[in-house]
């Protein structure tokens, strides 16, 4: 294809995208002259170029659109929904023709006669301008100009982004003179400023000043950007990746070589390479607005087809993301937006009845936080119907009726991401087929992101997506197994557990042949990496009683432990794709080159989990699909509660829900200071009051001597509203997961009741109650600052 045609295509696609946006904008602001002028110009450019390139059919269609637009611009018509739809249909048709040109070099076979007729018919319909004044020159103005200037000149006259308009605005030129100059410009090719000076209608220095002002106002107009092919950027990124690897090798080398000069040079290279890497990364960054730009159109069309009124608010369009990630989230975002309009926002009537404004608000928000990009899609619609989801889940056999009733709403809402789960009463062509939400989740997780949904009945639904900034260079944990090195992406990493020799045989237990480890009382399914990847069986941890390393990871909401031989280091790695020959192996997401020049495989934790069928370990008999198991497993876990068991006083065996514990700390008793009668200590920049549980609960008299200095205090830190209080206990006994059944009601203050934990009677501590009793003003008094 000719370069000239290629350029035309690229330019026209961009122009069409802009048209989409501007037309939708124009619909809400029909009197905007600038918008109309800009739309007219864009269509005109397309028409002009395709006439030049010989695409006659395209030219004809663009011409029909232009004619209609010129009627609008001249104020002969006012914009109606019907007109906008016809113009948008024209944009779509042009887009299809461009696609045909791209594919075949010809402007396609499709018949657009009816569309052209529609456009022509609309032209004829004289919609008399109603309440709003026509966006054109008033008759007086027209008369005042010596040669009644055509309307386009009036647009130009008042446009302060043009030099003439600016001069007019500043009162440095008379309207008549400017209109005359514009007329002259139509004939010749001179610049308006020059013509005006020639006419003697304006002082040359005024033109100069206005010119400078204009340049300052539109800083983006000078050609400071150039078009660069995406391929070139990708190639640059690859080369920089290689440079980073070469740098890593060089650094290793320079460290072993005791040459100060060489070390200095390689340090310098190190800095430059890092900076270069950052800058090149930036070239691949694109504002999320590039994807969002399509949404005003999508929202408009969808709202009309669903007969709803929707306003789209966008915030944080400038938030930047790596190009590859932008591509990956395009479809999920579109789906979510469609869902919001189709299911979330109610029809205007229903909204009025619910006491809301008839126009629903769909809000897109993007922002950076903690090295991640957050995207929120929220609507102020009816919200998710928890009851209906519960019913559906029971119908589909995902959970039992009792389980569904006990499930917290938040978990219920997140079930909409399960495959085949749709609560729409009727299936529309927009959504409701139950495909989609699970695809959204899968796609987001594929790029290392997470999805969460929150909803309040009657007030709306918010879907929150968190995704990493870039995929090209990621932090990873390096491990070895069976003498091979592997990288585990840090996004899936939760924690590392090392079992010293002796412990490993004790800690790892078997459930029907499946190895599990008790992590804080919870059973963590284990995957032996060497077995899973069929590596050499010589791995050390297979020998009885040897130290083992467990990498606790998370995939698809499921935690499991990967047993490896050694954990080496964390490193920033450059992700490289695997050849087609290896694409079928789900256990890897790619490969990388290490500092020593050797290749290491990157583990795909999700793939590994599916391969190892970790998810089935816990309740293999209960359900058939992975997702169902997930739900059931979580349900089973919910019945149980993780409890911290502590000892206070001789007979005070107490349990505290672990969810109330911020941290467990150990302090020397010398750290205690006094604030009035209250024992306090300095903790993380705050003054933390201390409560001696045994004094409060066990009824031990307050005169109990404080332990001798030098002993260690076991402190359970409880936090509320940013303020902490330390509960001093005698001993931390254990962390257990138990089904909590309160058997005897409270008999002592600060105790909710008694239960059997680990076959011993244990009191359940009422932590907030105890804190309020000792420090009545806790959290509230501080709350204000």
């Amino acid at each position, binding site marked *: 294809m000719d370069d000239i045609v290629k350029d035309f295509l690229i330019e026209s696609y961009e122009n069409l995208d802009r048209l989409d946006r501007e037309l939708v904008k124009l619909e809400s602001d029909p009197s905007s002259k600038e918008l109309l002028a800009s739309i007219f110009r864009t269509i005109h450019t397309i028409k002009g170029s395709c006439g030049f390139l010989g695409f006659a059919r395209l030219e004809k269609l663009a011409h029909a659109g232009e004619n209609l637009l010129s009627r609008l611009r001249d104020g002969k018509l006012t914009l109606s929904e019907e007109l906008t739809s016809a113009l948008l249909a024209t944009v779509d048709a042009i887009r299809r023709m461009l696609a045909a040109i791209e594919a075949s070099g010809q402007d396609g076979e499709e018949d657009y006669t009816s569309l052209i007729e529609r456009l022509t018919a609309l032209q004829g319909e004289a919609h008399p301008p109603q309440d709003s004044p026509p966006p054109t020159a008033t008759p007086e103005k027209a008369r005042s100009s010596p040669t009644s200037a055509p309307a386009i000149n009036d647009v130009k006259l008042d446009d302060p982004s043009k030099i003439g308009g600016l001069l007019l605005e500043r009162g440095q030129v008379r309207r008549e003179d400017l209109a005359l100059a514009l007329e002259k410009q139509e004939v010749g090719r001179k610049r308006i400023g020059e013509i005006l000076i020639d006419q003697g209608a304006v002082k040359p220095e005024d033109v100069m000043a206005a010119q400078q002002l204009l340049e300052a106002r539109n800083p983006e107009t000078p050609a400071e950007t150039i078009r660069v092919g995406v391929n070139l950027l990708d190639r640059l990124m690859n080369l920089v*990746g290689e440079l980073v690897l070469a740098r890593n090798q060089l650094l290793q080398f320079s460290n072993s070589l005791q040459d100060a000069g060489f070390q200095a040079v390689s340090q310098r290279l190190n800095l430059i390479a890092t900076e270069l890497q950052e800058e090149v990364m930036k070239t691949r960054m694109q504002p999320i607005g590039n994807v969002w730009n399509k949404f005003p159109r999508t929202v408009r069309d969808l709202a009309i087809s669903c007969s709803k009124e929707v306003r789209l608010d966008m915030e944080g369009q400038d938030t930047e993301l790596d190009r590859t990630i932008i591509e990956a989230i395009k479809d999920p975002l579109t789906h979510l937006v469609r869902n919001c309009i189709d299911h979330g926002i109610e029809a205007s009537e229903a909204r009025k009845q619910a006491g809301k404004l008839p126009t629903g608000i769909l809000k897109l928000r993007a922002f950076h936080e903690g090295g991640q990009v957050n995207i929120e899609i929220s609507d102020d619609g009816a919200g998710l119907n928890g009851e209906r989801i519960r019913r559906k889940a029971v119908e589909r056999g995902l959970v039992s009726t009792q389980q569904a009733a006990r499930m917290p709403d938040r978990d219920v809402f997140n079930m909409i991401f399960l495959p085949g789960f749709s609560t729409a009463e009727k299936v529309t062509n927009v959504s409701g087929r139950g495909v989609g939400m699970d695809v959204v989740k899968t796609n987001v997780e594929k790029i290392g992101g997470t999805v969460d949904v929150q909803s309040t009945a009657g007030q709306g639904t918010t879907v929150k997506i968190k995704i990493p900034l870039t995929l090209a260079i990621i932090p990873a944990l390096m491990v070895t197994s069976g003498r091979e090195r592997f990288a585990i992406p840090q996004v899936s990493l939760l924690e590392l557990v090392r079992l010293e020799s002796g412990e490993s045989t004790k800690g790892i237990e078997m459930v029907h042949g499946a190895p599990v480890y008790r992590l804080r009382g919870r059973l963590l399914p284990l995957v032996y990496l060497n077995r899973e990847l069929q590596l050499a069986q010589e791995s050390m941890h297979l020998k009885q009683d040897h130290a083992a390393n467990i990498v606790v990871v998370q995939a698809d909401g499921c935690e499991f432990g990967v047993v490896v031989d050694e954990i080496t280091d964390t490193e920033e790695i450059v992700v490289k794709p695997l050849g087609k020959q290896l694409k079928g192996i789900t256990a890897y997401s790619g490969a990388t080159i290490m500092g020593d020049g050797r*290749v290491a495989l990157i583990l795909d934790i999700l793939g590994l989990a599916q391969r190892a069928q970790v998810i089935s370990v816990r309740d293999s008999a209960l359900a058939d699909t992975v997702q169902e198991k997930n739900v059931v497993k979580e349900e089973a876990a919910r019945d149980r509660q993780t409890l911290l068991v502590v000892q206070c006083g001789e007979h005070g065996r107490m349990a505290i829900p672990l969810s109330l514990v911020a941290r467990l700390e150990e302090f020397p008793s010398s750290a205690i200071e006094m604030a009035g009668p209250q024992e306090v200590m300095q903790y993380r920049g705050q003054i933390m009051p201390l409560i001696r549980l045994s004094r409060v609960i066990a009824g031990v008299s307050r005169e109990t001597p404080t332990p001798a200095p030098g002993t260690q205090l076991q402190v359970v830190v409880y936090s509320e509203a940013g303020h902490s209080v330390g509960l001093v206990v005698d001993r931390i006994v254990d962390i257990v997961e138990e089904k909590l059944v309160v058997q005897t009601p409270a008999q002592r203050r600060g105790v909710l009741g008694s239960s059997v934990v680990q076959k011993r009677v244990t009191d359940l501590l009422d932590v907030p109650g105890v804190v309020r009793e000792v420090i009545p003003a806790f959290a509230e008094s501080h709350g204000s600052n």
Partner: protein
Amino acid sequence: MSSQQFCTFLLDGHVFGTPVPKVQEVIQHQEMTRVPLAPEVVSGLINLRGQIVSAIDLRRRLGLEDRPEGQLPMNVVVRTNDGAVSLLVDEIGDVIEVDEETLESPPETLQGFAREVVQGVYKLSGRLLLALDIDRVVDLGDLNKPKANREF
């Protein structure tokens, strides 16, 4: 065009070849990273100046006997539709100009997968050159269920 240049290499005593433009470069034996679960014909991954390239053992791919212990293979890096792939061969031969006149279709006796990837046989003086269809060789689609997907 009646003749073209072939890059030749030896495998278990047989001379194989591929048109020169298909070959990107020939390099010494490289240290490889094994890929667990991969099909057996994939010997591993090599680092080709920062690019990660799969190495396919041509002996295994063609159903020949494994290379004797201790004999290090050479890498013939070929250009394919899906990027560079390295083929492991015993030895590199000369670049030979072959006459299209001497081309014959593979003999009927050629069995198995080799039959599918040998496009033709050039009769050179004293020996035969088997022309390989490189894109077919590197497409492991026929091994559709690699070890990776086996249940166990």
